[in-house]
């Protein structure tokens, strides 16, 4: 992939991000991740592991009562955790495009979708209404929506789930953002629609040179799409590596077990799982390895210390004492 040398090495660099709720619960404990320009990075983890909260922290749209307690987020080498609302408005929708997890909740139900897509242009550009309309239709066509003139006049609830998701994508990419964050764009969708959207994201990444942060708990799509993958467990990345490495040679016990619990043709009719069930939802500060209670290979040290990331291979790291050499 070509790189513009004037640009920063990483388009997005998150360092030790910690997000807490008003009650002090740690929703995201310590997330660090880096995305190079043009790269598609996956973020996997079970429900509640803090994937969406991390993206919200990046986009500055954390819900009321939830705040960043620690850490920095560099976008093009600029810390965007403490910028003013106006500056945030300039970045969001312009340089960072976001596709939200739940499409039906992310659209204003009372406004025609054409206008909602147009709103992004209205805020960030000073194009004439005519130009804007052309661009809206163009982008809508680009995300494989057909019959766009009519579609633009519809209200969100009059669209199918797949269409809604594509509208969101159109909204996210219409300003050619440098970074596209896609938060589980396919979870709610049918199999056939799912693969279309994956193709679409690939295309955007290719044609518009956008970096992508792709969030999912579905390994099959991650496998198809991502260059690199972070595995998140209870607000802490436990393993990172190239997609190949993670899927073919998972090192952290959690990743291993997670992959094993996915039904596959070979395991048909057999029992799937060796991972113990999680018994409680601990939201206090991490003082030891959080996976210890479920880990089959747990040993004394796991219960006492919090493991760092240990290097396994080139670009492949895991937060497990087994690799502390």
């Amino acid at each position, binding site marked *: 992939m070509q790189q513009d040398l004037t640009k920063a090495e990483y388009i997005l660099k998150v360092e030790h991000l910690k997000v807490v709720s008003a009650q002090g619960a740690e929703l995201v404990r310590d997330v660090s991740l880096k995305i190079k320009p043009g790269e598609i990075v996956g973020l996997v983890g079970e429900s509640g592991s803090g994937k969406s909260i991390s993206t*919200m922290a990046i*986009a*500055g*749209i954390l*819900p*009321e009562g939830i705040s960043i307690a620690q850490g920095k987020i560099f976008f093009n080498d600029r810390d965007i955790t403490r910028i003013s*609302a*106006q500056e*945030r*408005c*300039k*970045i*969001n*929708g*312009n340089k960072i495009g*976001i596709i*939200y997890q*739940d499409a039906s*909740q*992310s*659209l*204003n*139900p*009372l*406004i025609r979708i054409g206008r909602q897509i147009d*709103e*992004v242009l209205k*805020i*960030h550009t000073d194009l004439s209404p005519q130009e804007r309309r052309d661009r809206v239709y163009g982008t809508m066509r680009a995300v494989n929506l057909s019959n766009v003139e009519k579609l633009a006049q519809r*209200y969100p*609830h*009059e669209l199918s789930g797949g269409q809604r998701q594509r509208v969101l994508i159109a*909204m996210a990419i219409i300003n050619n953002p440098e970074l596209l964050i896609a938060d589980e764009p396919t979870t709610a969708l049918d199999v056939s629609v799912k693969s279309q959207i994956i193709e679409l994201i690939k295309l955007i990444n290719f044609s518009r040179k956008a970096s992508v942060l792709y969030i999912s708990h579905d390994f099959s799509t991650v496998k198809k799409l991502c260059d690199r993958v972070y595995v998140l467990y209870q607000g802490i990345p436990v393993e990172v590596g190239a997609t190949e490495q993670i899927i073919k040679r998972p090192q952290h016990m959690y990743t291993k077990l997670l992959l094993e619990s996915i039904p596959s043709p070979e395991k048909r009719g057999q029992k799937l799982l060796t991972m113990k069930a999680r018994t409680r939802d601990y939201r206090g500060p991490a003082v030891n390895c959080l996976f210890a209670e479920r880990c089959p290979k747990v040993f004394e040290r796991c219960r006492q210390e919090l493991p760092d990331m240990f290097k396994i291979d080139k670009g492949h790291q895991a937060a497990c004492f087994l690799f502390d050499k």
Partner: protein
Amino acid sequence: MTRYLLKKAGQMLITLLLIVLIVFIMFELIPGSPARIMLGMNASQEQVAALESELGIHEPLPLKINKYFVGLLQGDLGHSIHFDKSVGELINEAAPVTFSLAMYAFVLIIVLSVPLALLAARKQGSFLDNSIRFVTETTLAIPPFFMAIILMLIFRTTQLGLSSGRGNLESLGFLRKFFMPALAIALSRVAMALEFLRDAIIEQKKLFYTRAAVGKGATKSRILFFHIFRNSLVPYVTALGLILAEVFGGSIIIEQVFLLPGLGRLLVTAVEARDFPLTQGIIILIATVVIIVNFLVDFINQFIDPRLRSSDMKSTKSNFWLKLSYKLKFRGDVE
């Protein structure tokens, strides 16, 4: 659409018919003969009997109902017993007072509740929010006539020159003259309207699409006015529709206090005099207005919220009703 309209019209008609029937049945049960009331204590039995038969009081109920409906279809509301005048004419005289009072109060409600709700909703639970709500709740807790009395005392002692609403309609500035009565009606309802709007705004704020709008780069004020405010209007408009019935109810009392020659006072006289045609006429008028306004509210809401246009919004609707019944209907009851 026509189907919908027809269905709605049918429902409205049924509701109206029921109202007429309820009033009919009540009047059948109410003791006291309008003839005797009209003629007074010194009248003789024969005189009363003669007047009663002239008024057709002892006719069987179905016949009376039938007669009434035939008249109604021809736009004839009957002849008032007490005033010896046609009901239509009497209503024509009194309705402008009540309707302008109601409209005035209505406008006051909107003018007061919208900015206050926006202020209160800015930060839920803030000092400002709490104090706005405390004050409006208090006004809601004051019986309306007591409120009127308090206002009267206050305005008198402060000499603001806002005299009570008595006098010729034409001779004084309408706005000044009706200010106090309208305010007395409005104050207790402001709390209802405000709370509705405030809750709606807060609820909308919690919804994800507002944050998604931040994600698009929209500014705060744009989000508030372009997204949140508009989306909060549906419950607010519905609340306003239902408040209207209460405003009419309020004007019945307030007209007594401020001595305004409106429908409310006419109605009290009519009921006391057992003047059935007049009572029925006024009730039908008020109920029709309320029903039509609520129909319009439905309509406006559909205009605001396209989701209400599609039929399969069962859950949204039920949720909606829940909230309505909660605050509004309950609060609104008999005040």
